[in-house]
């Protein structure tokens, strides 16, 4: 698929010598990373390599112990409206999806707009779900039936929930998509479908950072980052990932992942 040239502007995400301390060794150790619009980056590493920690730092839910974090060239605001605006531009697809079981599909989709909504709209949405057309469009994008909108989330199947979580992510209209092992619990067919969906959404000016623990799904990514024991092991084009790099990444840890 042809991709427009990345616009030269501040990286969507920039980590400068970021460290997060852990119990016996650093969870992240002086990590440097830049992601520019249009990039589709896979994050590889075995369990405990620091992939989730890196994503948590990137979406602002974990404050690093050292180093500097920049979102579109700006340091995170400490609180208030400015920080919420920054956070709204970063969308996270959680491994456990984190849908709100008790609310309807439409209310869940609209929950992604809370950063922009005031109390009146937020309350009204709990009585008469709002912005039906936009929500239906988000579902259609993920090949879900808009008839699901009034259904409670708890009534959906596993595959539908995955798609709904992505639809909610899109509804947030973020510029950076983060995904924490979204394919871990899926069967191979569903996993490749879902990956294709995510890759399709991640076009400039958007970017995608997605963590994986299996190296067999790298097709479609531009760049691969290898993380081992909180350190950057390699950061290269997807085509440059070879057996030697993977052995170094998983090597001695292969027996006890």
């Amino acid at each position, binding site marked *: 698929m042809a991709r427009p040239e990345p616009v030269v502007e501040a990286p969507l995400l920039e980590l400068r010598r970021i460290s997060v301390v852990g119990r016996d060794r650093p969870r992240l150790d002086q990590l440097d990373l830049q992601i520019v619009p249009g990039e589709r980056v896979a994050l590889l590493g075995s369990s405990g390599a620091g992939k989730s920690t890196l994503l948590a730092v990137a979406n602002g839910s974990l404050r690093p112990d050292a180093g500097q974090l920049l979102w579109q060239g700006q340091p995170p605001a400490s609180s208030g409206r400015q920080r*919420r605006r920054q956070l*709204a*531009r970063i969308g*996270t697809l959680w491994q456990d999806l*984190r849908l709100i079981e*008790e609310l309807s599909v439409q209310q869940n989709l609209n929950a992604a707009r809370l950063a922009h909504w005031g109390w009146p709209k937020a309350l009204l949405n*709990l009585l008469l779900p709002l912005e039906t057309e936009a929500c239906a469009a988000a579902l259609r994008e993920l090949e879900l039936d808009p008839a699901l909108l009034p259904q409670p989330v708890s009534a959906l199947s596993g595959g539908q929930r995955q798609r709904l979580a992505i639809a909610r992510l899109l509804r947030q209209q973020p510029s950076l998509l983060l995904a924490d092992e979204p394919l871990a619990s899926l069967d191979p067919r569903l996993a490749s479908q879902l990956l294709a969906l995510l890759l399709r959404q991640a076009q400039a000016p958007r970017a995608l950072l997605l963590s994986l623990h299996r190296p067999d799904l790298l097709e479609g990514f531009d760049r691969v980052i290898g993380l081992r024991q909180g350190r950057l092991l390699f950061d290269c084009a997807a085509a440059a990932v070879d057996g030697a790099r993977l052995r170094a990444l998983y090597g001695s840890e292969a027996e006890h992942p």
Partner: protein
Amino acid sequence: MRPAPPLLVLLPALMLVPLLLALPGLLHGGGWELIVEFAAAALTPSLDPLVLRSLLSGLAVTVAMALLGWGTSLFAGLLLGLASSRTLWRTLLGHEFPAQLIRRLLALPRAIHELLWGLLLLQVLGLQPAVAVLAIAIPYGALVARVVSDLLDALPTANLEALRAGGAPAPAALLTALGPPLLPGVLSYGGYRLECALRSATLLGVFGLGGLGTELKLTLQSLEFHELWSGLWLLAVMVLLESVVGLLRRRWAMPRRLALHQPGVGRRGREMVLALAALLPLMALVGQASGVDLQALTRWQPLPGLGSDHWQEVLDLPWLQLVGGTLLLTALAAGLAVGLAPLQLLLTAPWPWARRLVGFSWMLARLWPPPLTLLLLLFVFRPSLFTAALALGLHNLGILGRLLREGLQDQDPSAQQALLAAGSGPRLALLYGGMSGVARSYLAYGAYRSDVMLRETVVVGLAGAVGLGSQMLESLSSFAWDQLAALVLVYALLTLAGEDLSDRLRRRLLATA
């Protein structure tokens, strides 16, 4: 158009509107200097050893009454609960009807508030420590019995049937199959009842049955605020008790109260049984020390007969107004208690210090007996139904608020964190991500608590003409026994209807969860 769970949580707060509209009109203008004086005394309680000694001995009496009443109710409730269990009768005799009969009979003692029992027993037995103990034990025993039998009958009977089919005799099969799963539920409820018993014992004291409550009332009425605060801070030992009960609940892995639909799991069963067995000698010791005389319970004072010539006066009571007032009082207090707690949590969501302050105010509200709050409110407000509702509602707010906070703490915070990470403000994240999960069980508990508030309307009866409760206190003090009997009967019917309604509401809320 069905309101979503988080919105349902906010709906009871609509009852705050009439309350807020009415209260400014009820200010009588004076009294503010007293309130200021009262508030200022909080930091300078009296440390006079004489005062402290009398307060401490009052506290000892209150704790003893609570412990004895609670212990008695626990054992009596267990026995009566077993006796009113359908599963038990079916297994032993093959019929369920004795269970139904005992259940019906237990409805009456349950429907009458412990304060009313206390005041009635006071007339019959005279002032003695056993009165307060009995006043707590009777309604509590009937309540425990109901919970025990409900728990028992809700347990799956597959194990039991398997044991019976294997030839085990009925009593052994019952004990083996139902004992272990029943115990954690009963003890968890029992621990909660102990907290209630302490509140009740304090309350009974406010109405003259001795102990710390009596001291508090006397110091308040004589405007000795510094001494009053010494007593109020002493009440804080109840927080200690709350944390001990909480500790045991965690240690024995007992179900939390807001997790109404989760079966109890339970750990360290032997420890639980031992703790229960150790209660009996402890009760005997405490009873001995506080001079509870069981024989005195057999000496009844003669009651004036229920004269038949006063029935017209009974009929002439403004029944409609009394019942309506009681219901309105309950609705206002319930709306305040159920509705304000989530509102306070939402408002203070961005500021941890403000949340702690709210938690502290809830603790004070739980500890202070509602009639004392009412007396304080009467410094600035005229006596009225709204004033009474405020006192009753604030007390229950303290109880519901703590439950809501516990429920929120217990649930998985990930949905809320996801919203925060997507840029939602802390308040809306709490509303969508936090309240959604706890809404149904919180409202179910609110329904149960509203039923308790209906029973409790009698304790704020001091506020003048505010329904059946105040009329009862009036009839009691004028020895109008026939009036009282009729009032108690109507009140009991009302609370039973309320209980039924709250049960239905609770089941509906939890069924769709």
